[in-house]
Structure formats: C-alpha cells, structure tokens
C-alpha cells in the first residue's frame, strides 16, 4: 500500500449504487431453485441452542486446564497422605490402678513362714540407718581376728554395735552403714559329709 494513497471515493454513493443493483426475477430462476433446493427436514424443527460466544484465548485456556489437572492430582494425593506430625502429641498414659497386690512378688509358703519369724524379731518399720563409730588412726594395721577386740588405739577398730543401739559419742566421724535389708532365708540343703572314697589307681612312683 502506498503511503501517499488518498481515498477519494464517496461511500454514500457507492452504498446507494450497490443496494439498487438487483437481478430480475424469472421463472427460470424459480426452476433453478426447485432443482437445487433441499426439502425441509422435520428433524430441523428442534430449537438450536444459541450458546454465548465466549472468546477465550488459547494460552489462557491451556493454563486453566493445567491448573485444574494439577489441582486434581494434588487433591487426590492429599487424600492418601497424612500431613500430621510423625510424633503424636498425645502422651499415652497408662492407667495404673492403685492395688497393693501389684507390688508384691509371688512368694513360696516356706519363705513366708521364715519371713513371719523375722517380722516378729524385727519389725519392718524399725529399720534404722545407724552410723557406726570408727576410730581414726594414722597407721592401718591388718585386722587380727580375735575373739576379744583389742583396745589399742593405733589399730582400726570396728565396734560391733548392736543393731538397735545408738552411738554414744556422736562427735567422732561416723560411717553410715547401709540399712540392712531383710534377708530371706533360703532353703539350704545339708552337706553330705560322707564323701565317697574313690581313689583312682595311681601309678607307684619309683623313688631313686
């Protein structure tokens, strides 16, 4: 197209000219119509749905389709995946019924009888932690087992105090002894003193 083009046509005149320009009607025209026209179908009486023309660009349509697809897959996956934390915040607390029988160990009847004896001699509640008196000395000498305890001050002595007694001198350093627990008297079998004399045959040594 030339840049110097000037449109000089009167379009109003062109409009009138073109609208007035018609073809004459003749029987030949009607015969041509009868030969070429198609009969009206009864099925065409169904009303056509005039859908509104929605102009959507291809890129926008493709983007929308992809978003729908990705969203659908995400929703499907989210249904099967548990997004809650691996460690549940719920602390499982075991209900412990306060029954005293839960803390008792099963015991045999003999032990129970021995236990009853010990109970008579020493009640359970009377166990006390009694410190022992220890005399401090510079040198430590081996302890000589003797029926009577030595009164040497240089030796380390341990006075066997009775269980229920309270030390008189509390100023000295005392070593606390672990509280004695109840000792279960187990069944003990008597040892057989009669040892069978089985002497293997030994070879006679030749003394030279």
């Amino acid at each position, binding site marked *: 197209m030339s840049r110097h083009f000037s449109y000089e046509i009167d*379009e109003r005149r062109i409009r009138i000219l073109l609208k007035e*320009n018609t*073809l004459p*009607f003749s029987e030949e025209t009607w015969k041509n119509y009868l030969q070429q026209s198609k009969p009206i179908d009864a099925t*065409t009486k*169904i*009303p*056509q749905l005039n859908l509104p023309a929605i102009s959507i660009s291809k890129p926008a349509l493709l983007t929308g389709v992809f978003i729908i697809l990705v969203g659908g897959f995400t929703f499907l996956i989210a249904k099967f995946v548990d997004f809650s934390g691996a460690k549940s915040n719920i602390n499982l607390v075991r209900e412990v019924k306060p029954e005293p029988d839960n803390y008792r160990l099963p015991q045999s009847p003999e032990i129970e009888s021995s236990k009853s004896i010990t109970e008579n001699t020493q009640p359970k509640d009377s166990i006390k932690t009694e410190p022992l008196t220890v005399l401090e000395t510079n040198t430590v000498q081996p302890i000589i087992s003797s029926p009577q305890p030595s009164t040497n001050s240089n030796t380390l002595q341990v006075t066997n105090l009775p269980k229920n007694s309270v030390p008189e001198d509390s100023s000295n350093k005392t070593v606390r002894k672990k509280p004695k627990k109840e000792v279960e008297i187990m069944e003990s079998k008597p040892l057989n003193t009669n040892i069978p004399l089985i002497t293997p045959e030994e070879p006679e040594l030749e003394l030279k």
Partner: protein
Amino acid sequence: MSANDLFILLSKNDLNTKKDLFEANYPFMSSVAIRFSKNEMQAKQMVIACFDSVIQNFLLLKNRQSQFSEFLKTAFLTEAVKFIKAIRNEYYVASTVYAPGEENKNYNLFENNEIIDYNTAAPSVVIKSIQGLVPSQRLVFNLYVVDGYQLPEIAEILEASEQTVKSNLEKARYHFQKNIEKNLKESKHEQAL
C-alpha cells in the same frame, strides 16, 4: 396472511407460499448476493442456498409473530457470510495473495496526467470493482460501507479480531479504488475500440 399461517404453510413445504416469498424478496437477496460474490453465477447459487437456510431458521423461531421479510433481512446477510466462508479454496487462500488474472499491475495515477473522478463511475464498474476484491476484504467492505455494521459487530460476525477487521477494511478501500481505476481505463479503452 398472518405469521402463524405462514409458519404452518412453510412447515408443510407449500411450494406456492415459498414461490411467493422467493419472488417478493428476490431483489433484496440478489443485490446482497451480487456484491458478496465474485461473479453472477456464484451470486445465483448463493441466493438459492441462503434462502433455504433462512426458511429453516424461520421455522425454528420461538416467536412466530415476527414478519418473514424483517427476519430475512438480517438472516440472509448472516447466511451469505457463511456461504462465502464455506468456499475455503477461495476464502483462505485468496485472502493472502492477489487474485489471479491480474497482468497489468501499474496503478500509476499520473501516467497519462489523467484525473479520475470516482463518483462518475458506472454501476457495472463499481460492481466489477467490488467483485475483484479478495473474499475477506469484500465481506468487510460490504458489511461496513453498504450494510452499516460497526467494526466490533463485523469482528463478531466474521469471528476475527477487531484489528484484523480494521486492517482488512483499509486494504479493501485501497484495492477497491485501484480496481475502479483499472476498470475505468478498460471501459474507456473498450469504448475507443
């Protein structure tokens, strides 16, 4: 004849009624067909095909009180556009290349120092000039200049963008004027002979 009676007769395919309607509306249909088509033969085919389509569309109307002549004026234009667009070997190919048969492409207005008065051109020259346009430009020129449609309406009818319609209209005006010049020269040359 009432619209309801007309509807009943057309649904029964009454030939007399159809002939009366065809004859009454033939001038309008032929004027549209001539300016929309590339030649007279194609125009006659367009009249027959589009008239059948208009009758079928009229029978599908819910409002049976509408006048057939008023309905035909808008429906025939729509069917004519569809008819031209259906001729794919002409519509989609000719829209991008020049029409065949053009040997002399010299449109120099000042070659012989002639001043051309476009407004004195004969109707046959104007018809021939508009039929010389490519189908897409011909449709846009007819709908805008002759039928009075606006560019957005034409874009909706042709299913194209408004920019495309505007571009086609500018090209149509340019080639229409050039065709008038060429046809005027040819007619003067024929008269001289």
